[in-house]
């Protein structure tokens, strides 16, 4: 599933998610890894971004537990994927305050809402 120049990057990204994959881009000109998806490489400025799919393996770079008036806090994290890009996400299946920087995580698609959402679970745990 390679994106032609005419395909909207957000649409290609969404179709990857719908097939259970996390898409990202690599610049064919300068080799930079790019996320979120765009038409133009923010490093070299060329329109040569090619799609790849992530292994889904990453490490928590930063984390916060968001507290609310009612209910348990939930976590919001930034994850560094092993291909070299970073994204916001959450670590599912563990209490918010137990998520730690440096924790190894792997991708799990959350299909509970209208659209699939890429989240992560601690590496080595099957749920």
């Amino acid at each position, binding site marked *: 599933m390679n994106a032609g120049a005419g395909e909207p990057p*957000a649409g290609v990204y969404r179709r990857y998610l719908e097939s259970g994959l996390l898409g990202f881009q690599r610049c064919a000109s300068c080799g930079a890894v790019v*996320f*979120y998806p765009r038409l133009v490489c923010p490093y070299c400025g060329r329109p040569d971004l090619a799609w790849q799919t992530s292994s889904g393996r990453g490490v928590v*770079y*930063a*984390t*916060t*537990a*968001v*507290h609310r008036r009612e209910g348990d*806090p*939930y976590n*919001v*994290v*930034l994850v560094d994927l092993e291909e070299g890009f*970073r*994204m*916001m*996400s*959450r670590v599912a299946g563990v209490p*918010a*305050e137990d998520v730690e*920087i*440096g924790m190894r995580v792997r991708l799990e698609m959350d299909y509970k*809402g209208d*659209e699939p*959402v890429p989240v992560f679970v601690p590496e080595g745990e099957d749920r």
Partner: protein
Amino acid sequence: MNLRAKVAVVGIAESDLGEVGPEFTPLDLIGQATLRALEDCGLAKSNVDGLFSASAYYHMPTLSVGEYLGIRPRYSDATSMGGSSFVSHLFHAAAAIDAGLCEVALITYGSTQRSGGGRLVTGSEADPYEAPYHPRYPVSMYALAASRHMHQYGTTREQLAEVAVAAREWAKLNPKAFMREDLTVEDVLSSRQVSSPLSVRDCCLVTDGGGAAIVTSTERARDLAQPPVYLLGAGEAHWHRNISQMPDLTVSAAAESGPRAYSMAGVGPEDVDVAMLYDAFTINTMLFLEDLGFCEKGEGGPFVSGGTISPGGELAVNTNGGGLSYNHPGMYGLLLIVEAVRQLRSECDDRQVPYANIALVHGNGGVLSSQVTAVLGSENTL
């Protein structure tokens, strides 16, 4: 183009602050602050030919302000980079005045967010790649940065709390500060968690308020009512908009804007008598102390401990009490300028920093995104 001492801030004012009550509009506060600032310097509304504003309320803020006040500017700049916008306006006004595009610039802002519902009013669009995870804008973004700083440098919640306590100690000396009760490190740590590691006392206030600053050429400034406060240098930088795109959550673009401003001014951090650092959250003060060269990267925690930035400490930081304890009307950048000018005019009574000749103003906007630094100086610095 070197803008050193080409322009001066000649008039400043706050509007009413804190909680102004229902049915006042942000434009009402802008009108109030503008009249006070004009009175401060002795210029008339009809002298204003450059208009600068930013707003979360008005999509075309200089149009709204111009209409409300009956100002027909020949130069208009609504640069919108969050809370830093107004420091940027000061920089841009200097360039415009120096180029002869306007002569008397009005920079102004107002917000009624507290009376209007007690929540941050923001025009920020959600990032589609962040929105599914429901970070609370903007606190969760700053919390992520704090988490990283703690992980990487061993910074503690107690050290973050020291920033809030220092701000409160200054606020106690400022009659206009919104929160002046005692505050201890323990109080900060035990306050309600919002987005860990930040609790509610790590977060800026939600108040009403506004301000105005009048800027003109150095030549013209010398004939006005107040001692001119000169713009010695300024610099801007931004590297990202959304937190997930910030290259390193422990280094802000202040690491570029600061050196740009210092270079133009011909000064360094060691020359600064008063540092006004945009403290939307406690982590901000720490990051900007590091990025602007007041301490080494990663040393912000130890640096702020033990009263270093409190009244009587080694470095006067946020002497009005900051966004944390003085006022934070949605965007706070203009009020940084107001306090810096007051310090350099020696108008600060109990909180006056002795022999203050150089003030650094550092504005932050977005989610550690936009960084704008300005260096202001008294007559003695020319």
